[in-house]
C-alpha cells in the first residue's frame, strides 16, 4: 500500500508486561488473554494518518526474556521509535526500566523517540506503581509517558500515534536524517520528490534509493 513514510518501531520491556498484547490491540484491535511467550521478535504493521499523510508503522515486538536480549538488541538499530513498557501491577518491571533505557540508548540512534508506557491500567486494584512515579521517571529521562490498557484498548492508539506524531515533527524539524535508513524512517514510494514539507537538503540524494 502506498505510504508517505514508513516508521519502524520497537516495543521493549520486561517479559509479561503486555508488549505483544499492545501490538495485537493496535494492529488487529483484539485482545488475547492467553498469549504465548514471544520467542524472538514478532512483527506487525498498520497504516495511520498524520497531518493528512499516510504513514506505515512497522512494529517489532521483541521478546522480553533476558535470554533473547542479544537477539532483540539487534533490532534497536533501525528503529525510529520505541515503546518502553512496564506493568503497573509489577514493580520490578518498573525498576528494570533503567536497564532497558540504557540498552536502548546504547544500541539505537540518539534521535529515537521513546515513549514510556505503563500498561494494564485496567487492573487498578492491583496497582503497584503509581501513575505519578511513571510521570516522574518519564520527565527525568525525557520520555513521553502514558498509561494504557491493552485489554480495554485505552490509550493504545494514542500511544502509537503520539509517538508517530513526535517522529513526524522531528522529521519536519529536520532532526532525523531520513536518507539514513538506520534511523528507522523510510520515504514511501508515493512521496512526491518536490514535497514542500520535506527538508530541502537531503532530498535529492535520497530519492535514488527510496523511489524506484
Amino acid at each position, binding site marked *: 500500500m502506498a505510504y508517505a513514510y*514508513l516508521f*519502524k518501531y520497537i516495543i521493549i520491556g520486561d517479559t509479561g508486561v503486555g508488549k505483544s498484547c499492545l501490538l495485537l490491540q493496535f494492529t488487529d484491535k483484539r485482545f488475547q*488473554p*492467553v498469549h*504465548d*511467550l514471544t*520467542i*524472538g*521478535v*514478532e*512483527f506487525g504493521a498498520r497504516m495511520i494518518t498524520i497531518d493528512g499523510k499516510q504513514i506505515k508503522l*512497522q512494529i*517489532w515486538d521483541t*521478546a522480553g*526474556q533476558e*535470554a*533473547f536480549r*542479544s*537477539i532483540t538488541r*539487534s*533490532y534497536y*538499530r*533501525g528503529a525510529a521509535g520505541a515503546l518502553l513498557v512496564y506493568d503497573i501491577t509489577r514493580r520490578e518491571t518498573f525498576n528494570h526500566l533503567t536497564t532497558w533505557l540504557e540498552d536502548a540508548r546504547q544500541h539505537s540512534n540518539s534521535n529515537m523517540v521513546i515513549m514510556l508506557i505503563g500498561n494494564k491500567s485496567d487492573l487498578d486494584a492491583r496497582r503497584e506503581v503509581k501513575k505519578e512515579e511513571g510521570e516522574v521517571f518519564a520527565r527525568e529521562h525525557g520520555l513521553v509517558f502514558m498509561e494504557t490498557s491493552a485489554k480495554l484498548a485505552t490509550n493504545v492508539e494514542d500511544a502509537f500515534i503520539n509517538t508517530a506524531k513526535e517522529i513526524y515533527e522531528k522529521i519536519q524539524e529536520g532532526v532525523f536524517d531520513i536518507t539514513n*535508513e538506520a534511523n528507522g524512517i*523510510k520515504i514511501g514510494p508515493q512521496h512526491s520528490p518536490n514535497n514542500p514539507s520535506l527538508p530541502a537538503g537531503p532530498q535529492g540524494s535520497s530519492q*535514488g*534509493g527510496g523511489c*524506484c
Partner: protein
Amino acid sequence: MTFLEWRKFNFFDINSNVDKGNIKSALDDAQVRSMSSGNGQLVLGDSQGSIHLISRDFTVHTYKAYNIDVTHLIQSRHSSKLISIGNDEVGINPLIKVWDLSKPDRHDNPTCIRISRSVPQNRAVVVTCLAVCESSNLMAVGHQDGSIIVFRGEIGRDKGSKQKVLKDGNQPITGLAFRTQDKKTYLFVATLSNVQVYSIQAQDMKLYLTEKSFGGCTKRCSIMTESNDTQFVIAQDKAIYSLTIEGKGPCFVVDGTKEFLQCFRSHLVIVANDTASNIPHVRPGHVPGGHTVTVLDINNKFIVYSAMQAPVVGAVAEWGSLFLLSKDYNLHQLNEKDLQSKLSLLFKKNLYDIAIKIAKSNHYDKERLVDIFGQYGDHLYAKGDHYGAIKQYIKTIGRLEPSYVIRKFQDSQHIEKLTEYLAALHKAGSGLGQTTLLVEHTTLLLNCYTKLNHIDQLKHFLMTKDSEVDFDVNVAIKVCRQSSSEAALQLAEKHGKHAWYLKIQIEDHARYLEALQYIGKLPFSEAENSIKVYGKPLLDHIPHETCEFLKKLCTDYKPSNTPLPDLNHDTVERAQPDDFIHFFLDHSLVLVEFLEHIINYPSREKCSTQVYNTLIEHYLCLWSTTSDTTARETYVQKVMRLLSSDGIPYDKNQALLLCHSHKFSPGLLLIYKERKLYDLILSENISRKDYAGVLSCCRAYGSQNPILWQTAFHKLIKDPDVPGHYLSEVLHVIEKDKLVSPLFMLDALSTSSSVNVGLLRNYFLNVLGADSKATETEVSLAEKDTKDTEKLKSLVQQIQSKPVIFQGSRCSVCNETLELPSVHFLCQHSFHKHCFQSFSESDKECPACLPRNKDILDIIQSQEPNKTLNEDFHRELVKEGDPFGVVAKYLGLGIFNKLTLVTNGNPKRKIQSSQSPSTSKPQVKPLPSISKPANTNPFEEYDESKNPFGSSDNAYDESLNPFS
C-alpha cells in the same frame, strides 16, 4: 533453552526407506551434490556428473550430464526444464546447462537445450548458489568471490540472453533468491556477513540495493518461503531471521547450528546439527551425530514436527510430502497428517485455540470451524472460564443453536456474558434467517440489558439499527417499557409505532400534551384511530387541547407536520363526531363546545341524530347543573332553538326523555305540542302549578279535545293551591259544553278537600237551572203531543164513522181543474186519472201522501219483531265504536220491549187496496177505507211514549242514562 521453544506437536508421519534402496543402487558410489524437485519428480545430482530423475513410483532414471560433477540443480516447478550447474572439465570451469526433460534424445536421455558459462569478470570462480525466476526470465548465479551474474532472457535459449555482473564485497555468496512483488522483482543476496536486497528493473536490468542487513548465513541456510507474505529466511546459530523487501522482519529463536533450510508449504524445515548440549536427555530415536529435523509452522508459530534423524543431506518437497534424503541415501517421506487427525490431536490436549488457528490457516470450511468454536466454548465453560467460553460461542452464531448457549448461561451470575452473546447474535442478526433469531432472543437480550442496568447499551442497541430492524420492534418496546420507558418511547417514535408511543406516553408518563401533539402529526386515519383509543384519558387531563384537536379532526384535519396544505386535497377526510362523544363523559362543557363547533362548521355535511341528541342532553345537563341564571337562560334558548328548528334530525322521543329526566318544561311542552300530546302538556303544567298555562292549554286545544277540560278540572280540583278564578273558568267551560255530569262534579266536590261549595255554587245553579228548564220544555212538548194524538184519534174516528166528501176541485198533481175520470183518496187528495196513472208508482196509494206514509210505515215495520234483530244487535255492538249508541238505537227499536204489535192481516188490506184504485168510475168507487180495520192505521196504534224518537228533540237527560 528448550523451555523457550514454541509449542511442539507431531503432525507428521515418517515413512522410512520409501524408495526401497533404488536411489542407493542408482548412485552407486557417488555422492549426492545437489537436489531439487518439481514437475512431478525428484532430481539428484551426484559427484560423478550424473543426474538422477526419480519418479513417483521411485524408479530412478539416470543420465550423464557432466563429466565431473553436478553441483547445483533447479528443477522448474511446472515445466520440464531442469537447470543444472556442473563441471565438465577439471579445474574451475562451471557450466550452466538447461535440459528439457520432455524431449528425450536417442538414448532416452533429456536433451540439453542450452549451455552457458558462468564466468564473471573473465575469471572462473566456484559457483556457490543458483536462483531462477521463471516468471521474469531471470537467473542468478552466485560465486565464491562475491560476484553475482544475473542472466536475463528466456532460460531455455542461449541467444538473446543478457548478463550482468554484480559485485559487492569479497564474501562468498551463500544464498540467492528472487522475489516478485507488485510487478517488481527483487533479488535477495545472502553472504556470510549480511543480506542484501536488490531491486531489478527488467528493462535495463539495473540493480539497486534497497536493503542491507546485519548478519548473514552459511550456504544453504537461506530460503524463500512460500507463505503468503513471502519472506526470505536465513538461519543463524541462535535464531532464524526473516527479511522482507522492506527490511527486517520477525525472528524466531531456534537454537542449534543449522545445516540447511527447506520450505514445505507454509512450513519451514530446519535441519540442524544435533548438538548434545541442546538435549537434556536422550530422546527416543536418538542417533549420535545425527541431525535434528524441525518443521516450523511460521504462521501459527509452533513446531509441527521435530525428530532426531540420521544425518540428512537433502530435503525436497514433492507430491504433497516432504522427502528427506539421509546420508546413507535412504529416502524418508514425511507425510503431514490430515487436518482432522491434527485437530483431534489438539482437541485431546484441549488446545482449541491452536486448533482454530490451524483450521483457519487451512481454509477449513465454516461449518466445521464452528464446531471447533463450540467445542472450545464447551471446554472453557467446563473450565469455568465463562467469559472466554462466551467469546467462542459468539463465533458459533449462525450454526450452533442459540438456545444451547443460552441454556448454559441461564444463571443470573452469567447474565453479562449472556448479554454479550445475545448482542452478538443480534448483530449477526438479519443474515441468519428466521429460525435462528427468535423474538424470544430479543426479549431476553433486552431483559438482560435492563437487569444489568445497561441503559446506554440498550439505547444504543435499539437506536443504532437504522436500516434493518433485526428485532421485533413490538417485543422490544414491550420489554423496554418495563425498564426504561424513555427508551421504549424513542423506539416507538422511531419505528412509527404510534399505538405504543401513545400508550407509553399516556399510560406511563402521563404526558398528555406530548401525546396529543404526537397524534396531531399523524396522518388522518391513524390520528383518528389513535384518538379513538386514547381520547378518554386525554380529555380527562387536557380537555381543551383535546377538544380543539377533535374539532380539527372532525372538520378540516391536516397533520401538523405537513407545513403546506395540500391544495389538491379536495376530499377532506373528516371524522364522525359520534365516535368521540363518549369521551366527553363528565365533560359536558367541553362537549358542548365541541359539538357546537361541529354543528356550526359551515361546509360540513349533516351531523347524525346522535350528535344532536347528545348536544341536547348536555345542554340540559349543563342547564340543570349551573346555578347562574343567565347561563341557564342561554342554555334554555339553545335547547329551544334546537328543538324547534326544523330539519335537525334529533330523535324526538329521546329529546322528550331527556327533557323529562332533566325536568326541562319548555322543551317538554314544545315537544308535547308538536306531538299533540295535549293532556301531557296539561299535566306538565299542572305539575308545575302553572295554572295559567293549564288554562291557556285548555283554551287552545280544548275545542279539539274537550277531555282536556275534564282532566284539568279533575286535576285542579284536587289541588288546594289553585286560584279560584282558574277553577271557575274551567267550571264555566265544563258547564258550557256540558263536559262533566253534575254527579261527577258532586263526587269531585266530595273528594276534594280544598274546593268549597261556594266555588261550585254557580255551576250547580246553572246546571240545575238548565235541567229544570229542560224539564219544563219536555213537559210542554208532551202535552202538545197528547193533544195531537187526540186530534188524530178523532180524525180517525171521523173517517171511520162519517162519510167523506171529496170536494177537491183540482188535481193534486197538475193543479188543473179536476175532470173525470178522477181518482180520490181519503186523504182528500184527488187526481186526474191520467195524472195519477202517470205520476203514481202504485195505484193503491196517494202519491202525495206516499212519502210521509212510507216513513211512518217504515217505523212501524221496523218495530216489528225481527228474528235477526238480536243477531244484528250483537254484531253491531261488537263492531261499533260507540256501544252506547248502538244500545240506545236498539232500545229505540224495541228490542228490549215486549212490543205487542197487532198485525192486521196484510192480505186483506191488499185486497182492499187493489180494489180502491180499480174504481175506474168515480162516485161508485167503493171506499176501501171503510173495510179497513182500525188497527191497520199506522197512527192508530202508535204510542208516543213508546217511541224513542218522539222526544228526540228533548235534551237528553244524562242522569236518566243507566249506562253512564
